[in-house]
């Protein structure tokens, strides 16, 4: 009797362990697999490439989504924030304005998207999913109208443009500038979400909005802040994106949405309560980036990569949710 109980307990804890560390185990397995399968995978040059091209921009968007998802909401319009920042930034630079004006304008455009979301959610009581879905539609329409149906805008030359492109491509003490931007933002969001009063309020709203309200927390104000921050972070990605490729391609921001949501939720499997965390999100982004890169190196084309990513996300989710359910 007692033996079988112990046995059961052991089984449960093994399952709990697997559920908790499924991401880390998957991560390790994948790194080992690709290191064996492709000789170039573990080279510094390749890792550098992964970091700069696949990680930074997605990670910054995902940081914003981490805040929103922590608060119990979702932001489907992050792509619009990326695009709007990118569009205004490129338009301003193309019109000959300085880089500072360009960045301010870009972030301002993202800010407007964030404020719009905040108003819809906190003032009009629309659920975050529907509010940001509506903004997504409107944002896409706006871009199409502003670019006569989606014509890209290229930054041909100009001092500011080249300057930015150069910054985006240089490194400081061997660390690429975009990576430094990411590290600074990640540390800031980590402190904000996990160490600050604001972060605690966000967690409370995510866990039980009624309790937050009954505890005297200004829920509408904090929630507005959440959505503004998310939009601003997406705006940073928008500016980095257009500085890197020296252009604005309409509707390109949407590509980040699914990956960022996926990364954030992969990250939630790290915590017992499936709460999003900055570290988890970064791991999720890294996992997605490494798989994409690894699949490329072993000769899978872009199309198969998407299948691979989908299967991977599915398996991680299945492991996390399924094992947890079995453990209960």
């Amino acid at each position, binding site marked *: 009797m007692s033996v079988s109980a112990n046995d059961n307990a052991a089984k449960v804890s093994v399952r709990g362990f697997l559920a908790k560390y499924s991401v880390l185990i998957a991560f390790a397995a994948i790194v080992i697999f690709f290191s064996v399968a492709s000789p170039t995978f573990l080279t510094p040059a390749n890792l550098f490439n992964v970091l700069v091209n696949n990680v930074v921009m997605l990670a910054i968007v995902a940081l914003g989504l981490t805040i929103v998802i922590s608060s119990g909401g979702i932001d489907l319009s992050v792509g619009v924030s990326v695009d709007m920042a990118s569009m205004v930034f490129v338009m301003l630079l193309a019109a000959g304005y300085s880089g500072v004006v360009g960045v301010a304008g870009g972030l301002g455009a993202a800010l407007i998207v964030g404020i719009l979301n905040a108003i819809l959610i906190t003032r*009009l009581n629309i659920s975050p999913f529907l509010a940001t879905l509506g903004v997504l539609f409107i944002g896409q329409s706006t871009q199409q109208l502003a670019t006569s149906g989606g014509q890209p805008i290229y930054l041909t030359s100009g001092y500011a443009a080249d300057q930015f492109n150069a910054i985006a491509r240089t490194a400081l003490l061997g660390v690429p500038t975009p990576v430094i931007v990411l590290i600074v933002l990640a540390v800031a969001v980590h402190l904000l979400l996990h160490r600050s009063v604001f972060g605690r309020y966000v967690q409370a709203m995510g866990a039980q909005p009624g309790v937050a309200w009954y505890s005297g927390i200004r829920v509408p104000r904090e929630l507005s802040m959440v959505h503004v921050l998310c939009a601003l972070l997406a705006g940073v990605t928008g500016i980095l994106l257009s500085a890197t490729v020296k252009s604005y391609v309409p509707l390109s921001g949407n590509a980040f949405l699914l990956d960022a949501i996926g990364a954030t939720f992969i990250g939630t499997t790290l915590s017992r309560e499936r709460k999003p965390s900055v570290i988890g999100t970064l791991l999720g982004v890294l996992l997605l980036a490494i798989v994409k890169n690894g699949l490329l190196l072993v000769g899978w084309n872009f199309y198969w990569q*998407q299948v691979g990513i989908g299967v991977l996300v599915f398996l991680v989710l299945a492991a996390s*949710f399924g094992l947890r359910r079995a453990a209960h």
Partner: protein
Amino acid sequence: MSATVLHTEVGVSDEKQAAAKSAGRRFGALVVRLGAIAAFAAIMAYFVIFAPGFTSTFNLINVVEQSAILGVLAYGMTAVIIGGGSDVTEGGIDLSIAANMGLCAAVYATLLSMGYGDLLSVLAAIAVGMAVGALNALAVVGLGILPLLATLAVLNVAAGMELTLTQNTVVGASSPLLGVLVSGSFLGVSALAWALIVFSAIMIVVVHGTSFGLRLYAVGGHPEAARAAGLSVPFYVSFTYVLSGFCAAVASILTVSRLSASTPGSGELLLSVLAAALLGTVFSRRFVPTMGGTLLSVLFIGLLANGFQLLNVSSYWVNGVQGALILLVVAITSFARGSEGSR
């Protein structure tokens, strides 16, 4: 132990109040519903008056044809939302439905172009669509993954497989069945329009006329209550995802017939499908998704695009207006609910 606890002695004022409150709520809901419908009607009236040829039979049939694909997909989505509950983060949703249609279309067109017959190709497309649906069902029901996440992952898988199959190219297709769908007509109504009409009729009867449909609503509306009534919640939820996959397959055949090919980019339909299923709730007295409501909003979205076209308004407005309408409808709905003062 609490031996003496108050029970309302008379309870008249209480009951009256409750009755008044409930009447007020019903009135508020009615106002919202009529308001939204009036807004739709106003837009239609504007088109009728100002858009040349808007009311011509040819144009209207054209709209119905154009709406067929969106409609069939939206029915799948509606079924999933009914069975999974309409809570937007925890409830039922199938983000993979449009990508699934793309995959089915690719399978269908590829098989046809390889020389296989209609029957086999159609069956294969339907098998693929339902398999993707079954995968969603497994993830949501079997593994307990949030529908939003599970179907997001499956979206990626389906979209990737479509790309792999077609190498991101247009796969031309022709067959007797496609020929009938393209040029066939009956009673002056084209085959594509008939497809929507028949499919709509089946869906409306099944979901609103049978005990199966009634139970489906119960499962989505209050799973605990459904379980207590002896219903198998997992069965019904699984069914909706498989049905959604089936709808994707049917829509894929319609889209191949319309374009005489399978083309990349079907994933873009997802937002319109969601919009149609969500907007449809406003047509229901209970504010739940209904097949009839979905049909109306699909036609409305179709007419909106068509009206803009006839008025020479850029089609780029259509998305924005759709988005604004969703926000409007949902804001008014939440306002009507919020005015009960329950915070």
